[in-house]
């Protein structure tokens, strides 16, 4: 059974009373351990698709099943809980809590899950070590570089033991070196820990390293190919 299964997904927005179809009959399956990039030009529906996969938005029609659970008609409060327990998020602008240290940012997700203090502390330190920031656990986001902040964001995404990590343009704000380093880290987590990654991206470096590239245009899947270069 695929980890993520989208069937006949449509999403229509009513902008100024004119319906705009952002997604038009998307069928997509993503298996565990995949390292998938969703690409497409601006306005293609890439972000809408990512929001729907991430449970941040609900489709107008169609079903989305994640890890065996149909979330397409889930109540808002249940979706929040589902996101907390099944999906890790990495955002373009890192979106760390600026008043917390790197360790506290990672711990925060586990706090929302009511994980005990000692387990929180231990896991946050392990994750920061896994992303190579064991010596910056007490640093606030403002004291870290963009690349380091995004690494903390990756550690935070993994903190909740998610089924997969959804990364929205994770390298867009990073310089080349940091971007490559981050991609290597994600690949490592994919190989070493079996973590599934789904990216929305424009970045050629990400596309080049993705195992699978799904191209969206005008709300439809234009192509879905395995990446031969990987």
């Amino acid at each position: 059974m695929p980890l993520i299964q989208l069937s006949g997904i449509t999403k229509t927005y009513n902008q100024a009373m004119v319906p705009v179809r952002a997604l038009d009959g998307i069928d997509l399956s993503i298996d565990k351990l995949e390292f998938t990039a969703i690409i497409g030009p601006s306005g293609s529906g890439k972000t809408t698709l990512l929001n729907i996969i991430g449970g941040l938005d609900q489709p107008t029609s169609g079903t989305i099943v994640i890890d065996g659970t149909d979330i397409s008609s889930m109540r808002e409060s249940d979706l929040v809980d589902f996101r907390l327990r099944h999906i890790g998020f990495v955002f373009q602008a890192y979106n760390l809590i600026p008043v917390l240290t790197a360790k506290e940012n990672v711990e925060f997700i586990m706090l929302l899950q009511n994980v005990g203090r000692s387990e929180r502390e231990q896991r946050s330190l392990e994750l920061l070590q896994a992303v190579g920031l064991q010596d910056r656990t007490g640093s606030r986001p403002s004291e870290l570089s963009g690349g380091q902040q995004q690494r903390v964001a990756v550690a935070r995404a993994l903190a909740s033991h998610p089924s997969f990590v959804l990364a929205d343009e994770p390298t867009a704000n990073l310089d080349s070196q940091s971007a490559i380093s981050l991609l290597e880290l994600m690949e490592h987590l994919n190989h070493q820990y079996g973590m599934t990654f789904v990216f929305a991206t424009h970045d050629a470096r990400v596309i080049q390293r993705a195992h699978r590239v799904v191209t969206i245009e005008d709300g439809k899947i234009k192509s879905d190919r395995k990446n031969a270069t990987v």
Partner: protein
Amino acid sequence: MLFRIAWKNVWRSKRRSGIVIAAIAIGLWGGLFASGVFEGMMEATVNSAIERELTHIQVHRAGFRDDRSISMIIPGADSVIGYVRHLPGVYAVTGRCILDGMASSPTTSQGVRIKGVDPHDEESATSLRKEIVQGFYIDTAKVNTVLIGRKLAEKLEVRLRSKIVLTFQGADGTLIYGAFRVEGIFESNSSQYDQTNVYVLRRDLFALLGSPMIHEIGVRLSSELFVPAVQRSISEKFPALEVMNWGELAPELKLFLESVDLIMNIFLGIILTALLFGITNTMLMSVLDRVREFGMLMAVGMKRRQVFVMVMTETVLLSLTGGAAGMILGGGTIMYLRRTGIDLSMFAEGMAHFGFSRILFPTIHFATFPILTLMIIVTALLAAIYPAIKVIQLRPASAIRTYL
């Protein structure tokens, strides 16, 4: 950790939080100071009335307050005084012969209440001796001496050693005249009182009346706390007599004192209501600056209820910080001025007309602080509602992509 995040968020924009904290602190400082002055003024007025002549408890023959005729004497006054003197909490007891009459000088006359007192007992029970500003207190060795208020002295155009004539009705209805020499002039906080009351030796009045007669027994207690017990004890022992405490004797004073707290709480409430809008504005700016962050929090699994509580907590912490600063400032100012006093001599005449002291000692009840803390929390919660609702109305998907 939510509490810690909220606390850290308060200090995220130090300048913005600092301004609103300063506004709350200064507002409360001003409110508390005004409250302290007003409470001090009312407390001084009540204490002054008790010390001047009211005492804590007065005993009369039933109906005396409606019919102040000479015949309304307290039967067996000496035994009543003897009994009261030995009750626990009683500091002093004074028996007074009270007659309404006229004080006349060669130039004019003034209606007065003539109080025949035992100088020693009256000195213990009231502040009369301390209020002498010219001349001397009543001397038992002298005959027919009188203490008059400064205002009466001015009205009658008399000075120390001048003679005035006191006229009053005897028990049989005849007019009795007595010439008295001004031995001392007193000045209390109330100019009205000073103009309408004179003190003479009780013995001199008894001589003019032909027999001893006590109309009023004033009881001064070592503490206000003894009032109910002493009042009850006298009433039970002498059921035919009318035993009233100061609050019953001067209900307007009691009402003033009781309403001070209410008025001051309303006053502070008005200040806090004004501050409420400032707090709302600050919190609104704060949350609008963090739309993306709130979007992230909700996206990763923070429930809207938790986000709401976090904004509320931030607002309460911000407001309580300002509130604590205001209470420390206000309480400190009142404590300092309670020691030094505020000299209001420049308004002395107007103050005296209303029975207020020239030196004001601000005071504040300890109970004000928990009430005020509660009011601040309520204000903060009200102020936070709008910003918190704005936050929980955000859609995480779009909030995450908001760039300000």
